[in-house]
């Protein structure tokens, strides 16, 4: 997972890149011909200093290695922005950055 945040005025512009196959369950393995099972991020939550500011639910139709850009008001240097995701298999990942 990668995160990049920039403050403009009191708004933090945050870009996040998650590493995930986002399998639709429709693709077949090109060699074996077996269907590749559904595997996708279902939940993404963004925290600003520990408070939830964005709560997303996704389907398998979000692109592979999902990208998300969002903007948080009332941000200042030193604030912490954290992003967590959880997929349909219960796998989880988080990342945190401190605004400069």
């Amino acid at each position, binding site marked *: 997972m990668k995160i990049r945040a920039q403050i403009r005025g009191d708004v933090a512009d945050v870009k996040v890149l998650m590493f995930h196959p986002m399998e639709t369950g429709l693709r077949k393995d090109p060699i074996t011909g077996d269907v590749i099972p559904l595997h996708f991020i279902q939940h993404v939550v*963004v925290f600003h200093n520990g408070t939830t500011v964005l*709560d*997303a*639910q996704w*389907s398998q*139709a979000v*692109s592979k290695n999902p990208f998300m850009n969002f903007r948080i*008001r009332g941000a200042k240097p030193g604030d912490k922005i954290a992003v967590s995701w959880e997929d349909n298999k219960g796998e989880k990942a*988080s990342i*945190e950055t401190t605004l400069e």
Partner: protein
Amino acid sequence: MRALAFGSAYVATFAAGWLRPVQLLAAQWNEAAFGAKAVADALNNIGATSIADSDQIQLKAPEIAENGAIVPVEITSRIPGTQTIYIIADKNPQPLVAIFDIASNTEPFISTRIKMGESSKVRVLVKAGGKFYVTSQEVKVTIGGCGG
């Protein structure tokens, strides 16, 4: 003693910044809406029974997407009190793509990338003050991005 103190501080930071967020995943994943195969069913399952067209939602998406696996979508809502933004690709096998619940101090803006199985209307719904608003755009897809 010093090592112990550092250890406790580390644990506290770790718990606040990393472990808690994952446990705090708030909204229940809307299985009925995401599983719906028809747009009307998806709309019913998000509670959007009455929807007004709005020119206060800006949707930036390509008119022609060469690769349906990566269609950039940028949404800005100018509707006061925007609570939730929904992305729907009408002709996807399951049309509802994403739901974004937005806190009052988050700008009603989202940029992301979605998959489209074929050329289709892309709808963006906004829920504000308990009411639903919509804007839409046709996106032509040269190579579909669902199977293959």
